[in-house]
């Protein structure tokens, strides 16, 4: 069973299969359930499209319905559930990942558009035993409460500091012609695409400041 096949079965189908198995007292396997029929497409050459990309340094090949967003490909097909689906409309930033080192909303882009791209998710930044300096800073400063927005906040902030390093101005940059002074106002403006409904913003800003001053990025 491939990674994609595993999730081709919807939760409801899994439940139905389990309930049926329990009720009948027989053994069924997930693979025995009929696969969801792909909708017929007029003039379509093929219902799925193959995409090859690198995720957290590992080459991956997926065969996808083109409707699959990058976020759904990561979560549902590659089981990288660190990237979160908050609003699914590009308004909250919980799905932020890096593509080619730049932060984007993975919910607003189709996975098939990322042929050959290098994708980095929160899982690729660090691990429990080997935290990325930004992850460590968020822990140190208590930069979260429920934690749901945190992977997006961390991916966003790591890429944001690279934008600052590259000299990219922001809406609050006073002078477009000189080097950026990373004030708290700059951090807040540059992180405005990541909402935190627990409102841990003061600690998020402190964590980002700490990590940026640590120079370990």
């Amino acid at each position, binding site marked *: 069973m491939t990674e994609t096949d595993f999730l081709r079965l919807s939760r409801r189908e899994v439940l139905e299969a389990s309930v049926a198995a329990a009720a009948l007292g027989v053994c069924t396997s997930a693979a025995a359930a009929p696969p969801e029929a792909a*909708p017929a*497409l*007029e*003039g*379509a*050459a*093929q*219902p799925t*499209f193959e995409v090859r990309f690198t995720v957290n340094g590992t080459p991956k090949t997926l065969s996808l*319905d*083109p*409707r699959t*967003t990058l976020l759904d490909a990561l979560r549902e097909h590659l089981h990288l559930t660190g990237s979160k689906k908050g609003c*699914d*409309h*590009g308004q909250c*930033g919980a799905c*932020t990942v890096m593509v080619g080192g*730049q*932060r*984007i*909303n993975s*919910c*607003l*882009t*189709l996975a*098939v*558009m990322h*042929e050959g791209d290098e994708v980095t998710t929160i899982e690729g930044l660090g691990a429990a035993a080997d935290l990325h300096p930004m992850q460590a800073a968020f822990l140190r400063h208590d930069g979260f409460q429920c934690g749901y927005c945190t992977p997006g906040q961390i991916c*966003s902030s790591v*890429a*944001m500091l690279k*934008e600052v390093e*590259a*000299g*990219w*101005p*922001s*809406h609050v*940059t006073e002078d*477009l*012609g000189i080097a950026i002074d990373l004030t708290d106002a700059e951090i*807040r*403006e*540059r*992180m*405005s*695409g*990541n909402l935190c409904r627990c409102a841990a913003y003061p600690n998020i800003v402190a964590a980002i400041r700490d990590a940026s001053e640590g120079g370990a990025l």
Partner: protein
Amino acid sequence: MTPFTYERAIDAAAAARAVAERPDAAFIAGGTNLVDLMKLGVARPKHLVDVSRLKLDTIAESEDGGLFIGAQVKNSALAADARVRGAYPLLSRALLAGASGQLRNAASTGGNLLQRTRCPYFTNTATPCNKRSPGSGCSALGGFNRIHAVLGASDACIATHPSDMAVAMTALDAQVRTVTGDGATREIPMSGLYRDPAQGPEAETVLTHGELITAVRLPPPPPGRQVYRKVRDRASYAFALVSVAAVVDARDGQVLGGRLALGGVAHKPWRVSEAEQTLGAESRPEASFAAAADAALKGAHGYGANDFKIDLAKRTIRRTLADAAGVSS
């Protein structure tokens, strides 16, 4: 999302041809607006032609001293470009005032121009909307219309164009270059890109089906100081209630001339030549700024919840022109 097929275009002409051949096909570039509208069921293309990999992602200096911006240049790259920051700070500022860091990294120059309105009735398929479903009526007319147009609107539609970038480009006299399905190219001035809603709000631009934006050309910058001011409900990551793109050429306290375009008030970036002609026509700068504000809002009328935009726009114009002229208001 309605099912669709997908292809990645290899060059601009082939992309235009691929979309022109199918009435149900659409271009996709950054996807930040289209994917959202597809999820909502507002956009239902059956075939997507991906133009994001076309080699249209460079910014070059043109022979006349202007800039040539490829349609696939990302909003963040355009805002950060040293030539844009130096000669067209109005454009940098407008881009930086829009969206979020993540969205600017994905959104393209061409896509920004073609993004759809954020009118909540347009994006809600349960409500009538002439733009989404021609002939069904306009829910915003008697509805929640705080963000809607006070200029150029019609009873068919009072939606606003949401772009900041387009407002700056309009003030800078930008030209939009396109290629059509049969390979023909043309250049359209920003002032002629968007159609009036009274002509049918479902068609927002003069582009034909399959006509692809390949570049935006900026002529050399006009003389004077450039200022973009955006007024919105929160300090960041929100669409404009009113925005003002101003260029004012002032020397020794005297205003010689300038440019003025408004965002958030109409179906397109709103530029009024009568308003610009008042700049420098009065001996006192403040008087010419007030005259410009009145001329720009001439004929404006609100629909209830957005009445405030008329005064807000006038005040924002006066303040922004004063900033650009370097005089206190």
